[in-house]
């Protein structure tokens, strides 16, 4: 369907594309992704000859596009851009008919065409056909932008970050619609985005580019399982399958920023600190910040009037674990000990944090669902 052969391009001394070779099959949804400046948009715009390569050949259905009339070529390739670019001087119906008119379709067919097109995106003809773009919401505008690209039934549609200017809700519904349309109409779609989630949701094949080269070209599942480079892995980020829970340590599950108090501090200060932070227990540390034990409000009430500092009231009954301990062991210990929390210590015996059932649950949730 679409084939790039040794396509290169430079701008001044800067090379934009290095010897690009790839092939996209008919009916595929190909998503180009990569950091900004990686050449993905340039690649896209070469397909409808908005940008000319310095060398190499691009074949569309076996024909070298450099040998075709570029206006004729563009009329047979759908084009959707981020800024939408509906012509504000034309109605919705006129915008949809731009390419059919350029192709000199019989005029009497245009109304039916507009009806069919609007029906595909659930926008009633009577209500929308004669509105102007400025009277539509962003999402509706881009729907019309897509219809304009599809109106002359091009076999291939180019989409340059078409949804990135829309709010997340609208983006989501348009993504579903375009995937639906693509499958129903069996279009080949070349789609540029910087949003990995979008790429994973829509693509049959993802083309990851960086610095004018293709880093990896693979279906989403394969890219998730075997990211080719660290950069691809980084882009996949939270979408990567969760690392094995066996690798996790107490440090991944603990709550940090715990209130501590020195063992030589006075009862009064201790109580006001508890009140201030709304807790009933404080972790006690020595002058080197090493963990000594805990002091609870109950003990202070009971015997607080006979001592000046909290030193004598410190208990060491709360179980402690090391930050590097296995998370599952910590969890077992938390459950079996019956204590409401575990104290997590660093190598040097200073307090790293605490593990509670809540901190465990939220860490689990974050790990699972991102």
């Amino acid at each position: 369907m679409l084939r790039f052969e040794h396509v290169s391009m430079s701008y001044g001394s800067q090379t934009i594309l290095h010897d690009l070779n790839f092939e996209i099959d008919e009916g595929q949804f190909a998503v180009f992704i990569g950091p900004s400046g990686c050449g993905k948009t340039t690649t896209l715009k070469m397909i409808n000859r908005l940008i000319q390569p310095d060398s190499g050949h691009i074949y569309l259905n076996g024909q070298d596009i450099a040998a075709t009339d570029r206006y004729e070529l563009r009329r047979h390739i759908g084009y959707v851009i981020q800024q939408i670019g509906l012509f504000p001087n034309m109605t919705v119906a006129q915008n949809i008919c731009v390419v059919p008119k350029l192709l000199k379709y019989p005029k009497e067919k245009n109304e039916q065409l507009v009806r069919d097109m609007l029906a595909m995106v659930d926008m009633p003809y009577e209500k929308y056909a004669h509105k102007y773009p400025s009277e539509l919401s962003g999402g509706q505008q881009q729907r019309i932008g897509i219809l304009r690209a599809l109106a002359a039934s091009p076999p291939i549609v180019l989409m340059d970050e078409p949804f990135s200017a829309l709010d997340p809700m609208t983006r989501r519904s348009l993504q579903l619609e375009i995937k639906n349309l693509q499958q129903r109409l069996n279009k080949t779609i070349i789609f540029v985005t910087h949003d990995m989630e979008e790429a994973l949701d829509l693509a049959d094949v993802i083309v990851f580019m960086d610095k004018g080269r293709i880093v990896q070209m693979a279906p989403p599942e394969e890219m998730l399982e075997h990211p080719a480079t660290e950069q691809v892995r980084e882009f996949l980020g939270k979408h990567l399958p969760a690392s094995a829970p066996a690798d996790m340590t107490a440090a991944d599950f603990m709550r940090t920023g715990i209130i501590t108090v020195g063992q030589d501090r006075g009862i009064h200060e201790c109580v006001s600190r508890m009140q201030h932070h709304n807790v009933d227990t404080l972790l006690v540390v020595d002058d080197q910040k090493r963990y000594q034990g805990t002091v609870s409000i109950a003990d202070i009430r009971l015997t607080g009037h006979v001592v000046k500092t909290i030193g004598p009231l410190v208990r060491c009954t709360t179980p402690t674990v090391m930050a590097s301990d296995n998370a599952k062991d910590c969890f077992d210990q938390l459950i079996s000990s019956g204590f409401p929390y575990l104290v997590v210590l660093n190598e040097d015996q200073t307090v790293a944090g605490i593990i509670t059932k809540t901190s465990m649950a939220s860490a689990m949730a974050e790990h699972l669902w991102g």
Partner: protein
Amino acid sequence: MKIDLSAILHAVLIHLGYTLFSVSIGFVLGVALGILLTRTPKLSKYILPVLSVLNTIPGIVFIGVLFLYLGRQPATVLTALSVYAMFPVLKNTFTGLNEVDDQYKEAARGCGMNHFQRLMLVELPLAMPTIIGGLRIATVYTVSWAVVAAMIGLGGLGDFIYKGVSSNNNALILQGAIPAALLAFVLGTLVDILQRHVVPRGLRKRGDEG
């Protein structure tokens, strides 16, 4: 002091003739040159400053110089007025076309429009409000510049004004000045009406529809 209505009417018609003719020529030239200049950005970098310097030469000087070459004939006045009417149209056409947002140009290219189609279907309609704004300036100014036609004795409302000034006759001055002011007002209003008809509905701000 009797007011010779038929003389005034005659002068108004001559004045109107000068104005309409020169504004039409100036408009066509201005739009054409404006389009040309937007297509040749390298050239326009040099031509535009030259034009704006020319624009600052007082009409009276220009018409005087032309008079030396072309003599005392309507062509002298019409040439001068057309050139002056051209400037605002040219400038606004150039600005209007350059201000067309890239997204529309890109979309037009992507749809497969050639240069001419892009110009006619997208760029000119979008620049139209600015271009007509230039036409309005040109029209109103030309009415007042046409007064200088009388300087070389070619009639129009300027006749009354020059005669009035030289004979210290205020009534005569007003006889020329008031119709000239009215003419400017009427023509300006006509351009405003035209503006409403040529600006695509989708470009009008909400509120001034209907």
